[in-house]
C-alpha cells in the first residue's frame, strides 16, 4: 500500500461482500417463491424479498464504488486522502442507515414503514429500486456529498489523472441524477419518465464511467502498459457510452405515455449501446496482450477480463436483443427483461467491484501484490462457478421469457399471466438450481480470503519480449 | 499527416460539379418529376456527390487500406437499402 489512508477502503469492501451474501440469499428465496408461491408467505412476501434483493445490490455496489474510489484516488493523486476520519464516519453512517432500512423492510409492513418515516411529507417510496424511505434517501445524499467532498478535495490537491477525473465525473453524475428520486408527481407518465433519469442514466450512463475508470486503473497496475495508451482508450470508450447511452434512454419511453418518436430515437441509439461494451472487451484483451510483465495477481486479471466479456454479453448482447421497439413491444416487462437485468448487473457492476477487491484486498491485508497461489486458485474457482451459473440463470430466464412472450403476448389465443407462469415453472426450477450453484461460488469466494494466508505470494515475472508500447 | 500541398484547382472543379448536381437535383424536384427512375437518378447524384466529398475534400483518395473505403461503404450500404425500399414502394408492396 503506497498511502496509509488507502486502508479506509477495507471496511467498505468487507461490508460490500457481506451485503452481497445477503442479496444472494434473498435471491434464492425469490427464486423459490417463483415456484412455491406460498414460501414464507405472509411473513416475507415476494415484494419485500425482492426489495431487499435489489436494494442490497445497489447498496453493496455503492459500498464497492466508494471503497474503490478510496483505494484508487490517493494512489492516482499521489497524496493521502483528504480526511480518512470522514471516510470512516460515513462508512458507519451508511452501514447503519442501510441496515436499519433493510430491517425496516423485513420487520414492519411496508405501509407501516411509510407511516413511521413520514412518507406523506415528501412521498418518494414505493417505486421500483427507489423503495427506500425518504429519510434514507436524504441520508444517501448526505453520504454521497461527504464522499464526493472527500474524494474531490484529494483529487484537487493532488495529481490529476484521467482515471481519477473520469471516476469523479461518474460519481458526481451518480449523486446529481439521484436527486430525481425525490421527484414524484401524481402524473404517472411524468413519474416514470423521470424515474428513468435515475435508473437508466445511472446504469447505462454515469456508472459506465465508474466502471471504465476502475477497469483502467486495474489494467494500468496489472499490465504495466503505458498510462497514456490506457487513458486514451478510456476517453474513447466513455465518450461512446454517453453518446449512445443518453439518447438511448429513449428505449424505456416506448410504452409509458411518452410520444411515439421515442420508438425511433430510442431504437436507433440504444442499438448502438453495445459499441462501448464491445470496445471495452477489445481494449481489455488488447492491454493484457501487450502487458510488460506477468502480474502475480492472476485472479485480478481474470476478473478484469471477465468483466469486459460479461459486460458485453449481459449489457450489450442481451440488451440489444430486446431494445428495438417492435421487439420490445412483445418482450417489455417479461422474463426477458429479468434475464438481461441479471447478466448485465453481474457482468458490468458486480464483476468490476470484485475486480477491484481482488486487486486491492491482498495489498490492504499487508501483502506485496497478491495472495498465495492456493488462495488465488480458490478465488478463480469462485469466478468460474459464479460466472457460469450466472450464464445459466440468464439462459433459463431467457427460455422462460421466450415462452412467456409467445403464450401470453404473441400467439393467436393468448393465455392469462398466471396460467403461463405455471407452464414455464420448469425453467424457474432450473434457474433456482443455477442460483444454488451461484451461492456455492460465492461461498468459495469468501473462503478464498481464509485459505493460504501463511503461504508466500507468487513472484512477478517480466515478459520475455515486451510488446511495443 | 500529409505534408503535400493541396492542389486547389482540382478541388474547385469538384466544388463546381457538386454545385451543379445540387441545382440539378433541386430542378428535378421543382419540376415535380417523380417516379422510381427519377428517384434513383437523384439518389445516384447524391451518392456521387458524397463520393466526391469523401475523396477530394476529406482527402481519402490519398489513403490506403480500410480507411480509403469507409465513406464508400457508408454511401453504398444505405444507398442500396434506400434503393430497395423505393423499388418495393414502386411495386406497391
Amino acid at each position, binding site marked *: 500500500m503506497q498511502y496509509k489512508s488507502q486502508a479506509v477502503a477495507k471496511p467498505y469492501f468487507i461490508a460490500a461482500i457481506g451485503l452481497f451474501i445477503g442479496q444472494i440469499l434473498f435471491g434464492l428465496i425469490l427464486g423459490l417463491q417463483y415456484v412455491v408461491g406460498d414460501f414464507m408467505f405472509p411473513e416475507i412476501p415476494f415484494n419485500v424479498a425482492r426489495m431487499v434483493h435489489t436494494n442490497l445490490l445497489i447498496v453493496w455496489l455503492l459500498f464497492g464504488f466508494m471503497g474503490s474510489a478510496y483505494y484508487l484516488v490517493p494512489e492516482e493523486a499521489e497524496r493521502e486522502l483528504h480526511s480518512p476520519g470522514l471516510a470512516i464516519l460515513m462508512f458507519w453512517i451508511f452501514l447503519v442507515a442501510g441496515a436499519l432500512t433493510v430491517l425496516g423492510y423485513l420487520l414492519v409492513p411496508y405501509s407501516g414503514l411509510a407511516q413511521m418515516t413520514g412518507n406523506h411529507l415528501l412521498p418518494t417510496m414505493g417505486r421500483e429500486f427507489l423503495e427506500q424511505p425518504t429519510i434514507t434517501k436524504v441520508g444517501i445524499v448526505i453520504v454521497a456529498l461527504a464522499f464526493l467532498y472527500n474524494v474531490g478535495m484529494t483529487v484537487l490537491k493532488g495529481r490529476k489523472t484521467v482515471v481519477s477525473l473520469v471516476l469523479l465525473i461518474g460519481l458526481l453524475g451518480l449523486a446529481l441524477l439521484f436527486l430525481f428520486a425525490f421527484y414524484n408527481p401524481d402524473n404517472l407518465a411524468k413519474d416514470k419518465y423521470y424515474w428513468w433519469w435515475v435508473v437508466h442514466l445511472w446504469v447505462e450512463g454515469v456508472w459506465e464511467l465508474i466502471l471504465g475508470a476502475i477497469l483502467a486503473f486495474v489494467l494500468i497496475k496489472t499490465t504495466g502498459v503505458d498510462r497514456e495508451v490506457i487513458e486514451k482508450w478510456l476517453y474513447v470508450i466513455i*465518450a461512446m457510452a454517453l453518446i449512445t447511452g443518453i439518447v438511448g434512454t429513449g428505449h424505456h419511453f416506448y410504452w409509458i405515455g411518452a410520444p411515439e418518436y421515442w420508438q425511433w430515437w430510442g431504437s436507433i441509439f440504444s442499438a448502438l449501446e453495445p459499441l462501448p461494451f464491445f470496445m471495452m472487451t477489445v481494449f481489455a484483451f488488447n492491454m493484457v496482450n501487450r502487458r510488460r510483465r506477468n502480474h502475480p495477481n492472476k485472479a485480478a486479471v481474470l476478473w478484469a477480463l471477465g468483466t469486459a466479456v460479461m459486460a458485453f454479453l449481459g449489457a450489450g448482447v442481451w440488451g440489444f436483443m430486446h431494445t428495438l421497439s417492435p421487439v420490445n413491444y412483445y418482450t417489455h416487462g417479461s422474463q426477458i427483461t429479468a434475464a438481461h437485468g441479471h447478466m448485465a448487473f453481474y457482468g458490468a457492476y458486480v464483476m468490476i467491484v470484485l475486480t477491484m477487491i481482488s486487486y486491492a484486498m491482498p495489498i490492504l491485508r499487508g501483502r506485496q501484490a497478491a495472495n498465495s497461489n492456493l488462495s488465488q486458485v480458490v478465488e478463480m474457482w469462485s469466478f468460474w462457478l459464479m460466472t457460469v451459473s450466472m450464464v445459466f440463470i440468464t439462459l433459463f430466464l431467457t427460455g422462460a421469457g421466450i415462452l412467456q412472450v409467445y403464450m401470453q403476448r404473441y400467439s393467436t389465443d393468448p393465455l392469462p399471466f398466471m396460467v403461463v407462469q405455471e407452464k414455464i415453472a420448469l425453467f424457474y426450477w432450473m434457474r433456482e438450481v443455477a442460483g444454488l450453484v451461484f451461492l456455492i461460488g460465492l461461498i468459495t469466494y469468501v473462503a478464498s480470503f481464509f485459505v493460504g494466508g501463511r503461504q508466500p505470494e507468487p513472484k512477478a515475472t517480466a515478459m520475455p519480449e515486451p510488446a511495443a508500447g | 499527416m500529409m505534408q503535400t500541398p493541396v492542389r486547389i484547382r482540382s478541388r474547385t472543379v469538384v466544388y463546381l460539379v457538386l454545385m451543379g448536381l445540387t441545382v440539378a437535383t433541386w430542378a428535378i424536384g421543382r419540376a415535380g418529376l417523380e417516379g422510381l427512375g427519377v428517384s434513383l437518378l437523384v439518389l445516384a447524384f447524391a451518392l456521387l456527390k458524397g463520393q466526391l466529398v469523401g475523396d477530394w475534400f476529406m482527402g481519402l483518395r490519398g489513403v490506403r487500406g480500410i480507411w480509403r473505403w469507409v465513406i464508400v461503404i457508408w454511401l453504398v450500404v444505405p444507398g442500396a437499402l*434506400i434503393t*430497395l425500399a423505393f423499388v418495393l414502394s414502386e411495386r406497391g408492396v
Partner: protein
Amino acid sequence: MPEGGPVPSATYPPGDLAIWIFILAELLVFAVFFAAYAFTRLDHVELFNHYQTTLDSDAALVNTLALITSSWLVVRGVAAVREGDHRACARWFWGAFGMGALFLFVKSLEYAHHLSAGISLSTNTFYMFYLSLTFFHFMHVMLGMVILAAVAIKAAGGGYSREDHVGVETGASYWHMVDLVWLVLFPLVYVMR
C-alpha cells in the same frame, strides 16, 4: 501527392484518428435513420409524398449550396495552412463558419414556419422523420461551427504551422462529415418521391 494518378500513401485519414472514430459512429446513426426513413415510407407512400410537397425545397437548395461552399472554403483553409499561411487559414475557416450561420438562419426560418403551422414531432410519421433527421443534423451544424470557430481562433493566433496542423485537419474532417450527411439527406427528404 501528384494530381494525375493518385498514389495512396497515408495509412490514416487526415486529422486525429479519434475524430474519425466519432465520425464513423455519427455516420452509422445517420445511415440507420436514412434506411428507417426509406422503409417506413413503404407503409405510408401517400402520406410521405403528400407532406413532402409541404417542404420548402428552395430553402433546401440554398442550404445545400451553403454547405458545399463551406466545405470548399474549409478545403482552402487546409491548403493555406499547409503552405504555412495560418492567417489565411483562419479567414477561410471564418468564411465556412459564415456559410454555416447562413444554413442555420435559413433552416430556422423553415422551422419557424412549421412551428407556426403547429407541426411537431408528433404530427405524423413523415414530420417525425423530417424533423428528427433535420434537427439532429442542425445540431451537428452547430457543433461543427463551434469546432470551426475554435480552429479559426487558434489559427489566427498562430497556433498552427506548416509542420503541425493536425487540429485544422481534424476540424475539417468533421465539417466535411456534416456536409456529407446533408448531401444524402437533402434529396432523400426533399426530392425523392
